[in-house]
């Protein structure tokens, strides 16, 4: 195979995996009964393009299976077959088999044909139940096929229609010349009851088209109209004999208003006009991120000269400063757009969850609805990749340990169906992901007993509720009475917490007996850039994440309290602990008298504390460089950065600082 072919092959495989994911998520939302044509079509298209490519690359094993799959899906979308739990399950299974085949192709491994054959047979048995179609390889989408006796088209231009510059009369004229049109009738009416205004289009049009016309041809005529400039609906004139026409009608409405959701849990179906895109290797993007990072450093290095020029009273100072400002603006814009390339919607991680909930709840005979919100929240690709496993783990836990069996729920006066809510949103410079279930909650007494049994706690040891909850993050801890193949092996929550900490995030748990639990994960927006506040301790510079700073105060002597050698500060009516950076880092630097320096009040998770520094300096964006790359993790430090003068400065890890005060 020549090189070009290999590249195409790789693209085909990537697209096929994406297609499988789309098939899977759509199958899961496919309700039983009369099939939702739109959803079935999406699944069909994915299977169809996989089959087409398989022919090109000679993936024989794939062709036959996708072919049978197509036949089945075709019967569904043409209304010959209803969706049942059985055939939906079979379709899901075949997605798994296809994934195995594709993975084998990708890794150039041999394919286990017995599994493939078994799957083919299973599908054929289902197919045999109804009228068997000879060759189901119809490629045309149903949009083109139904030959209907005519259409009724309603056009109501919006107020700003004339600004679009589209001549509606020309379009109507073209309509009458469309293939198959035998007769057009145009009725003009007033566009609702709008007040007449000279630059608004006050007329609306009802057009009746007769003849054997394809819907697609009509849509093509009005291609340029969208919801911004004109509301348009195209309804077929129902032929008398066809009872299943309802399906076609609902599909034929090309109303550009908000897309109707198939089910509350599905993501919005992509609009007809997809943005064009190219595939770029992540390595190239990382290189760009690095280079832009260097550019930011160089820019901040230069910006110092603006101040210098002012001090010199140079005649060219203004011009220089203007130029520097321009550079700063452009670097910032460039940085933002480069970073945005790395950002991906969190749906890439969320999309796996419906299948997991479906499988696990089926196995455990539980009735669970998964509600997902905020799937379009964007996160850094690296974050996304490392986030998927922890999410899967928490979701499995919620389904396995959290939600009770339907009978138990009913006995406790809850609805039989349990709910797991997975949501993502932005809050204060962080991305927050919540997994909330309305199950039994965590039995804290049981957790404590297990911890004592496992030797983590000593009998009779008094712990706070929060410490009690945090025991679940202890290595080797599991409360499942029976170790199932789903969860309960005790390799889990500690790994989850470690993964999230590696991403610079935090995880918190709230639980209420009998009502459910909430897992809250907070992550930084990006791993590469930080808005920082520079602070001095002696001659050393440390950087605070700006988003965590609440305020900074000049400590007043009468507000400082010492409790067993630990200092507290009374901030209005609340006492907050004080962390001295020079003591924490063991540096013989900086001021020792609290009243001589500054207290930076920071918030991390639910903790508020004061960090004692000498002075605050400027705020600036810094590029985060990992210390691990050439050294190792240092307690209290999340990374390093290179300042405008070329020196290295340390970035504080407030999570680790806050652990110091516990």
């Amino acid at each position, binding site marked *: 195979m020549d090189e070009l072919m290999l590249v195409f092959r790789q693209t085909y495989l990537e697209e096929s995996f994406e297609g499988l994911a789309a098939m899977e998520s759509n199958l899961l939302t496919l309700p039983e009964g009369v099939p939702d044509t739109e959803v079935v079509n999406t699944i069909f298209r994915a299977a169809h393009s996989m089959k087409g490519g398989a022919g090109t690359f000679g993936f024989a094993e794939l062709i036959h299976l996708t072919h049978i799959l197509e036949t089945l899906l075709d019967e569904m979308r043409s209304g010959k077959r209803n969706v049942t739990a059985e055939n939906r399950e079979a379709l899901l299974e075949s997605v798994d088999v296809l994934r195995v085949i594709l993975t084998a192709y990708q890794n150039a491994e041999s394919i286990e044909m017995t599994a493939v054959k078994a799957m083919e047979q299973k599908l054929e048995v289902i197919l045999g139940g109804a009228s068997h179609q000879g060759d189901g390889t119809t490629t045309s989408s149903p949009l083109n096929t139904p030959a209907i006796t005519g259409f009724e088209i309603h056009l109501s231009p919006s107020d700003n229609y004339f600004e679009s510059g589209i001549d509606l009369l020309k379009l109507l004229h073209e309509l009458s010349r469309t293939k198959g049109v035998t007769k057009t009738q145009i009725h003009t009416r007033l566009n609702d009851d709008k007040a007449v205004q000279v630059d608004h289009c006050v007329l609306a049009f009802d057009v009746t088209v007769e003849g054997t016309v394809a819907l697609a041809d009509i849509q093509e005529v009005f291609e340029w109209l969208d919801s911004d400039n004109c509301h348009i609906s195209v309804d077929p004139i129902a032929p008398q004999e066809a009872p299943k026409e309802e399906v076609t009608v609902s599909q034929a409405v090309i109303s550009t208003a908000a897309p109707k959701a198939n089910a509350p849990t599905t993501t919005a179906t992509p609009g007809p006009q997809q943005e064009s895109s190219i595939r770029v290797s992540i390595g190239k993007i990382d290189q760009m991120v690095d280079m832009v990072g260097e550019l930011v450093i160089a820019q901040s290095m230069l910006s110092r000269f603006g101040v210098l020029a002012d001090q010199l009273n140079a005649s060219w100072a203004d011009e220089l400063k203007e130029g520097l400002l321009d550079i700063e603006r452009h670097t910032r814009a460039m940085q933002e757009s480069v970073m945005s390339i790395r950002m991906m919607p969190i749906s890439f991680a969320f999309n796996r969850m419906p299948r997991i909930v479906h499988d696990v709840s089926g196995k455990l005979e539980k009735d669970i609805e998964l509600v997902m919100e905020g799937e379009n929240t964007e996160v850094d690709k690296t974050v996304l990749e490392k986030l998927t496993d922890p999410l899967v783990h928490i979701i499995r836990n919620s389904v396995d340990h959290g939600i009770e069996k339907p009978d138990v729920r009913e006995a406790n006066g809850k609805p039989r169906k349990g709910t797991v809510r997975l949501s993502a949103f932005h809050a204060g410079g962080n991305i927050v992901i919540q997994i909330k279930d309305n199950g039994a909650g965590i039995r804290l007494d049981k957790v404590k007993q297990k911890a004592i049994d496992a030797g983590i706690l000593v009998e009779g040891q008094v712990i706070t509720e929060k410490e009690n909850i945090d025991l679940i993050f202890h290595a080797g801890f599991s409360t499942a009475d029976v170790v199932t193949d789903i969860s309960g092996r005790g390799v889990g929550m500690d790994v989850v917490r470690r993964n999230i900490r590696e991403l610079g995030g935090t995880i918190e748990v709230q639980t209420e007996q009998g009502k459910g639990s909430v897992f809250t994960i907070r992550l930084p927006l990006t791993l590469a850039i930080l808005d920082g506040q520079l602070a001095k301790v002696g001659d050393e510079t440390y950087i605070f994440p700006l988003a965590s700073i609440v305020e900074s105060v000049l400590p007043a002597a009468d507000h400082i309290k010492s409790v067993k050698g630990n200092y507290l500060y009374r901030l209005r009516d609340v006492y907050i602990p004080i962390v001295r950076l020079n003591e*924490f*880092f063991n540096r013989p630097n900086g001021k020792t008298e609290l009243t001589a320096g500054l207290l930076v009040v920071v918030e991390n998770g639910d903790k508020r504390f004061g960090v004692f520094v000498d002075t605050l300096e400027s705020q600036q964006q810094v590029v985060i460089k990992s*210390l691990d790359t050439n050294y*190792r993790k*240092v307690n209290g*430090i999340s990374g390093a950065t*290179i300042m405008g003068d070329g*020196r*290295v400065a340390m970035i504080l890890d407030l999570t680790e600082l806050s652990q110091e005060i516990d």
Partner: protein
Amino acid sequence: MEENKQILTFILNNEIYGVDILRIQEIKDVEKCTPIPNAPDWTLGVINLRGSVVPIFDLRRMFFNYASEEGVIIVLRVEKDGKSKVVGIVVDAVSNTEFADMAALQPAPKGDITSSHIFVDGLVSIEGRMVILTDIDKIDFFRE
């Protein structure tokens, strides 16, 4: 094992040491480092090496218990748990590049000839002088 290995020789505690030249990235003057919190005293801190953050370790403090303002930084690549890291070591001076005849490599004498014995690979004689060949990966720079 290859017959002739090219090495960089440097001076530490008035002795001549050698390190595989393929590990060396560059040699630079000692500069002010940004200290790493809670690190051992022989970890001088980190410097900015053209955009990378590189830790600097003073071998004189680490093994010979003396400090000096003089010295040079040898920036080299070390392997740690299968990962390659770039670090700088501070030595008294860099002397030369030489070819060491690996066939004539003698094992280091048993017992402590110097406190640096833990990273000594063997002894080799070059033009009548004894050069102590080092295995830089054996030094645990990263311990707390």
